[in-house]
């Protein structure tokens, strides 16, 4: 049986799709069979971040309409043979898919995978309800800014109303500006965790590497062993129960030197 995670947030632009793609790749690199489902119907992006946009033949709408089975609609990743994507449809609307459809799709895929990650659309409307319906665990993605934290809190409340509790809701803090937090100019990772009162499972510092890797259609986890790709590996290890301190997600002066020397290695 697969562990089914929904990656969600209240506010858009916090990096759910990037986190889903990288986490999926990190899990697949770790030897797990992984299926990513793009539930952001109408505004699909997960295929673009994974560099699979030209390989799509069927979408989730074809599955819902009964044209193909969920397994037939899956797109295999170019580099990772154990990573698959069920793409969203750009022409469909969220109302064309129901929570029951999503539950049925996940049930059919369940036996073939170790992990199923569902990329939820932002907001709390139908798309959100579709995305959370089949999930056993929720990962809240937020940035350390007040509007994103406030919306994340709202989403946690909605998840709790839908049967989730603090044991199966976890938090990833994305686009964390280490220098600003050090100078006391923005909220720290502990401030955000304290406010939302759920387990913080990873901190992803803001990085230019993400933009570059998205441009290439190759998630950053697959391009490098250093920098923020290490953070996704840490998240995977924490998901599997290993105790890795959060401090290892935040670059220190020593890490800066390692980065400095890796620059020369790359060249």
């Amino acid at each position, binding site marked *: 049986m697969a562990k089914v995670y929904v990656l969600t947030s209240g506010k858009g632009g916090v990096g759910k799709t990037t986190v889903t793609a990288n986490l999926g790749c990190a899990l697949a690199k770790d030897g797990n069979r992984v299926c990513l489902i793009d539930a952001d119907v109408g505004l699909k992006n997960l295929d673009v971040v994974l560099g699979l946009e030209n390989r799509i033949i069927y979408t989730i709408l074809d599955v819902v309409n009964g044209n193909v089975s969920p397994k037939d609609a899956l797109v295999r990743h170019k580099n990772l043979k154990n990573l698959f994507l069920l793409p969203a449809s750009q022409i469909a609307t969220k109302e064309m898919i129901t929570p029951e459809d999503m539950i049925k799709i996940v049930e059919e895929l369940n036996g073939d995978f170790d992990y199923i990650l569902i990329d939820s659309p932002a907001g709390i409307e139908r798309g959100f309800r579709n995305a959370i319906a089949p999930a056993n665990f929720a990962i809240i993605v937020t940035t350390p800014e007040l509007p994103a934290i406030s919306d994340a*809190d709202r989403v946690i*409340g909605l998840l*709790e109303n839908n049967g989730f509790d603090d044991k199966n809701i976890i938090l990833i803090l994305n686009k964390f500006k280490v220098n600003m937090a050090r100078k006391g100019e*923005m*909220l*720290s990772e502990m401030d955000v965790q304290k*406010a939302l009162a759920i387990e913080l499972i990873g901190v992803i510092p803001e990085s230019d590497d993400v933009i570059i890797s998205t441009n290439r259609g190759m998630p950053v986890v697959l391009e490098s062993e250093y920098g923020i790709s290490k953070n996704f590996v840490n998240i995977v290890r924490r998901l599997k129960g290993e105790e890795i301190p959060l401090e290892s997600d935040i670059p220190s002066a020593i890490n800066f030197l390692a980065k400095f020397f890796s620059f020369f290695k790359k060249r």
Partner: protein
Amino acid sequence: MWILDIFKKHEKKNSREEALKRLDNMMSRRRDIIQKIPQDVFEKNSEEIKREVIRVISAKFNVPVERVKVDCQEEDGYVVIVTNINFK
């Protein structure tokens, strides 16, 4: 002009404290978790639930219970509680 810049930087350094204060304020206003009530339980106890809602509202807004009117209606599978409070 550079003297003014020093003060600007000083203001910027307090932005975390300002954000923390605002965050605490936002979180203190968050709504309590609302437990979902199955429809059959609701139908059996609707009068009791209405009485409890009236009691909570009258305590919250400091108005006598007779000035609070509560009605329940079903909409899209959810129970909507309609309240009317007479403050005068």
